[in-house]
């Protein structure tokens, strides 16, 4: 976790954020929310509601057309390119379509974020091997993505997103290609990370998972964001914050 995140009470803050794609209609309107360190949220909403767009704002792939975003305590519109790169290194992203590099094997795909950060090759070997074992793919280390099943590719994508122990993990439909049992197993991986302090946002349609894990939801409907607190008792500071925000309208 960075110096900034220690100073700021939030990992991410959105204040009146709207977004549109090159002259089109606004896909996100007047979004307000904040993520506290160590929180876990589901991001829900119909297909096309703007979940992927909201995630892309969080990992700095797009910029808002209105409003202000602060990540790790820093206003992103004032950051230099180098500072933005530094922020991206603290974010792990699991893409809906995995985005594995076809010419790299499972090991090299997972090692990629560490290599970009300039980690030592000996540390990379150790950490990647452990991570692949953690996601149950130690035997597929040398396999290329096209030789792996959808579920295996999904786990490689997750391993790659978390290998550098990001402060913020964003997962876009990470359980879309796996059965319910595997979906729960993957969620437990995210929970383990969350217990270690990583803030997690999981965009999903899987009602079963949402009910089973009972985390607050960032629900998108009609281009607006609504925060749905957990159904039952949820005593962490995130829940308190969202309850307070919901009360304030």
């Amino acid at each position, binding site marked *: 976790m960075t110096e900034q995140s220690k100073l700021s009470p939030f990992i991410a803050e959105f204040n009146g954020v709207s977004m549109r794609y090159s002259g089109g209609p606004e896909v996100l309107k007047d979004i307000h929310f904040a993520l506290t360190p160590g929180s876990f949220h589901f991001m829900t909403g119909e297909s096309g509601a703007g979940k992927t767009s909201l995630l892309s704002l969080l*990992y700095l792939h797009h910029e808002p057309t209105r409003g202000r975003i602060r990540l790790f305590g820093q206003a992103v519109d004032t950051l230099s390119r180098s500072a933005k790169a530094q922020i*991206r*290194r603290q974010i792990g*992203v699991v893409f809906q379509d995995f*985005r594995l*590099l076809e*010419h*790299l094997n499972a090991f090299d795909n997972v090692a990629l*974020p560490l290599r*970009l950060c300039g980690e030592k090759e000996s540390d990379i070997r150790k950490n990647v091997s452990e991570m692949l074992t953690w996601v149950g793919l130690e035997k597929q280390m040398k396999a290329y993505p096209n030789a792996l099943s959808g579920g295996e590719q999904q786990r490689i994508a997750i391993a790659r997103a978390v290998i550098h122990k990001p402060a913020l993990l964003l997962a876009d439909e990470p359980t879309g290609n796996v059965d319910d049992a595997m979906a729960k197993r993957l969620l437990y991986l995210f929970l383990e990370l969350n217990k270690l302090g990583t803030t997690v946002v999981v965009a999903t349609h899987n009602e079963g998972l949402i009910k089973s894990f009972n985390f607050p939801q960032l629900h998108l409907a009609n281009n607006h964001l609504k925060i749905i607190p957990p159904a039952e008792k949820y005593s962490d500071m995130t829940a308190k914050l969202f309850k307070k925000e919901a009360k304030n309208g």
Partner: protein
Amino acid sequence: MAKKSEFLFSKSSTRFFLPWMCALMVFIATLISAGGIVISNSLANWQRGVSASLTVQIPTYDKQGLPRGDAVTQDVEQTLTLLRTTPGIIGASPLNNAEMAELMSPWLGTDASITELPLPKLIDVTVDTSNKPDLEQLKANLNAAVPEAILDSHRIWLDDLINLSGGLLDLIAFVLLMLLATVAITVIYTTKSSLSIQRSIISLVHMMGAKDLYITLKYSVYSFKYAFWGSVTGFTLAIPVMLGLVVFLKSVSTFMLQASLSHTEWLALLSIPFGMAALAFCTTFYTVQRYLKKFL
């Protein structure tokens, strides 16, 4: 486990096109640069030689085309006396028939009998380059003493040659610039094509926090590597051709061109492949930096 690059350079046109283009461009650039050096050296040599010598011509036939007979010998003697007493002239000697024949051999061949031709008598004059004579004064004195004598300082001939050589050197510089521009433009387009093919990879590593410099250096070093090997190949191929040309020039035109290169000049030529690879590196660097501005 061997580290593999995240960028898919094997699909890049840079890999196939750049080395061949650099080889060809360096081959041409080396040959024309060597040509430029030879012309430049020869020019300096001619200037040195010409400024250190004069020629006096004594016509052997009068204006009506009749032989001047003994008057020629008298004029030669008088001219020599005048020249040898002129300050700044350290030597004056008439050319004999053998020397005249050698001088005329490039035009008349070695078998021609020059005694049958209406050639003037030539007096070769050596000038003290640190204390040159006043040529206008010498011309006036010569005209008074031997009205038939003609003083030739070679200036007109040299000026024409300097103009021609200067034009050739300008042309060489222009062609070199065109070669460099061709390489730069080609590198820009092959890099753009490669960036376009790898857009999804670049986007991914960018989102993972790769800095612009990281991506730029990966591309630039790759370009440098292929440009360098291509350039070294082109230079290696140019060396035997260059040596062949030197041998050929020496055999046909020793009196005109100084067809040899010093160690410094060889080193200057050796810098061409490095320069070409550096150009590829810088052009790629600039192109990738500009491309990355498309990403936030």
